[in-house]
């Protein structure tokens, strides 16, 4: 009789621990998604953070660790933007659904690739099945400023229909690169 009570408690503990973990993630996601700090505020924070811990480092994270982590991430990001030609100017996301096996986020992204600017909205679905995580994008909506070019608008509508974010970026990247080559070549002849 005792064993079954023990088991019932242990099962409840496991389910409560999962719930606590999920709720913590939801809380942190919401905090993250609803706040915004400008670059200036971030810089000021770095300076004040370092001043605070001038003497003894408190806790397990030295301020220099966090600063180094941020610098490394920002270096990677600026490398990618320069290398691929894709510059993101703003990004916002909102977690719409979060359960143990499924997360749905709404993303809004704007940027440009050389002289072509775009605005995207899409939903990102992450499903967890044991250890395997699968990712898919749905509800893709693309706005591009090159309305006059019928090729571009045909491309945009077919990519939207297929829902392929990846194809959009790969094709945009090649198209704009060749566009630039053509533009430079024509300028040369002027």
């Amino acid at each position: 009789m005792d064993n079954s009570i023990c088991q019932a408690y242990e099962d409840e503990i496991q389910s409560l621990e999962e719930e606590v973990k999920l709720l913590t993630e939801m809380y942190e996601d919401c905090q993250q998604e609803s706040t915004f700090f400008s670059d200036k505020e971030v810089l000021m924070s770095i300076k004040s953070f370092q001043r605070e811990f001038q003497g003894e480092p408190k806790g397990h994270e030295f301020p220099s660790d966090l600063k180094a982590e941020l610098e490394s991430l920002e270096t990677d990001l600026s490398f990618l933007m320069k290398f691929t030609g894709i510059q993101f100017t703003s990004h916002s996301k909102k977690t719409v659904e979060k359960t143990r096996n499924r997360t749905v986020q709404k993303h809004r992204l704007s940027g440009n690739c050389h002289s072509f600017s775009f605005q995207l909205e899409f939903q990102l679905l992450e499903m967890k099945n044991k250890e395997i995580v699968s990712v898919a994008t749905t509800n893709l909506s693309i706005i591009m400023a090159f309305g006059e070019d019928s090729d571009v608008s045909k491309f945009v509508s077919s990519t939207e229909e297929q829902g392929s974010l990846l194809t959009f970026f790969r094709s945009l990247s090649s198209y704009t690169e060749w566009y630039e080559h053509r533009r430079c070549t024509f300028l040369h002849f002027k």
Partner: protein
Amino acid sequence: GVFTHLEMLEVQAHEAALKQEEMEEQEEKLARLKARVQQLRLQRDELRAKVDLQQKGQLGKEGAVSDPAQPSARAVLEWKIRSVKAMLQIFCLTGISGKLTKRGVCFCISTAYEGTYLDSYYLDLLTKPEVKMHSNCIAKKYLQTDIRRFLSVLSDHLNAYVGRRYQADQLQEHFSDQIEGTLQRNSLHNLLVFNYKVSSENQTFPFNVRLLYGDLCCSLPTEVTISCT
């Protein structure tokens, strides 16, 4: 007589002590578990309340609900780190992303078929003293002169290959009742041969299909042969 009796009493006492110990351990364990459950329930309820407040706060356009005061410098930094990480994840979705390493760059080529993301391929490039790769690969001729073109060609090939493979898997999975046996495919997944049957009235018609994908950068076939066997 007396001695055996004493021994028996000793054994009985020992067993009783053991039983007592066991019972006490069980009780302690139950008490611990019960306390843990209550602690977790409390934590869970507090978190639920916090999250609800947050959701309501969203409507009022307020930011941090539980910290009306100025956020700490550490919190701002952590926010920024999460924000940059999120942007790097978006790059993964575009198909070509990467990270700088001590000796060069490690690129990540992601593949997708329509909206579903499939395999990711990693490519370690050493850029000092010259651009080299750790292993053999297609499109190597572009590697020295134009890394971007190289990655683009590689991405096209990989996406097409993964797309063909994904379609074949989906076909096998969703039409298994109509397909006879398994799909025959080669390693590049550019040749697919299978038999399937179509039922009409009381007859079934066996068909054999051969799909040839002549363009390795394309996930649609260039040649289709259907015959009734």
